[in-house]
């Protein structure tokens, strides 16, 4: 995204870049996805308000404690990414690699742990068609997992380019905005879906 040049005399007349294009595109995407998750939460709340018994009979209890631990791991990954962010903007790219790899590792652990939980829940009888809880659980948590996998892919690509020495502010900005969005949405989903 650019603004008309109000810069130094030698650059006046040109257009100055306000934010990198990749980052701006990702911000627009994240705004749209924010509305998508708001819609899902809204639908879940209305469905939940009409239920006589919650959780529905003969349905397993969601793993609150294990998921709380997994939420903590996800939050830790955001802390590592924030450290990489600071190093990037100080120009200390050599110090970025470790926190980015740790952030990736925490994110990958979160997704794998979620997959393990899903297998357990399916074995206990919670499926997409077993109840309204199952339908909403797999839809909301599944869409979040899909976003997490996409954001991890982008973060992994940014790490690969960092190692090659050609990581741009545009790519890094887009990757971190996407990952922070994934991290930020999860506690809300946890409160709405799990703590009921």
């Amino acid at each position, binding site marked *: 995204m650019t603004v008309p040049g109000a810069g*130094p005399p030698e650059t006046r007349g040109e257009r*100055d*870049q306000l*934010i990198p294009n990749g980052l701006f595109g990702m*911000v627009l995407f994240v*705004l749209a996805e924010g*509305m998508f998750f*708001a819609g899902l939460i809204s639908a879940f709340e209305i469905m939940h308000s009409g239920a006589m018994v919650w959780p529905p009979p003969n349905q397993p209890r969601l793993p609150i404690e294990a998921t709380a631990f997994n939420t903590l791991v996800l939050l830790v990954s955001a802390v590592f990414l924030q450290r990489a962010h600071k190093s990037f903007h100080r120009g200390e790219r050599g110090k970025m690699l470790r926190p980015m790899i740790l952030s990736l590792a925490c994110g990958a652990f979160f997704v794998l742990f979620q997959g393990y939980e899903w297998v357990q829940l399916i074995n206990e009888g919670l499926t997409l068609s077993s109840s309204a809880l199952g339908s909403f659980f797999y839809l909301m948590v599944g869409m979040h997992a899909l976003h997490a996998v996409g954001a991890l892919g982008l973060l992994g690509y940014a790490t690969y380019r960092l190692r090659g020495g050609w990581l741009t502010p545009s790519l890094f900005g887009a990757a971190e905005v996407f990952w922070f969005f994934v991290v930020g949405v999860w506690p809300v989903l946890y409160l709405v879906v799990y703590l009921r």
Partner: protein
Amino acid sequence: MSNRFSRIVWLLIACSVLFAPGLAAACSVCTTGKEDDTRIAFELMTAFMTVIPFVLVGGAFWWLRGRLRAVEDSHVRARELAEAGGSSSHVEAPQSH
């Protein structure tokens, strides 16, 4: 069924409707008696879905405004340096976001 027994049954039904409407309306396959909760949920979620776009778009504009100010400040500093005869006439736009 005797007339007296019939009256007692009707009295019990009337009492259950009057004093325990939830139980009287209880049904395993419907949500009768939950209309108020559903109505409140609809109202709250309507408010939520109305406010959320303003919060998201407003937040984005606030962030962009901050970026624009930072870029303008860096240009002002660069101009001041150039006018002061400093060797550096251009300062990089801030990268933070």
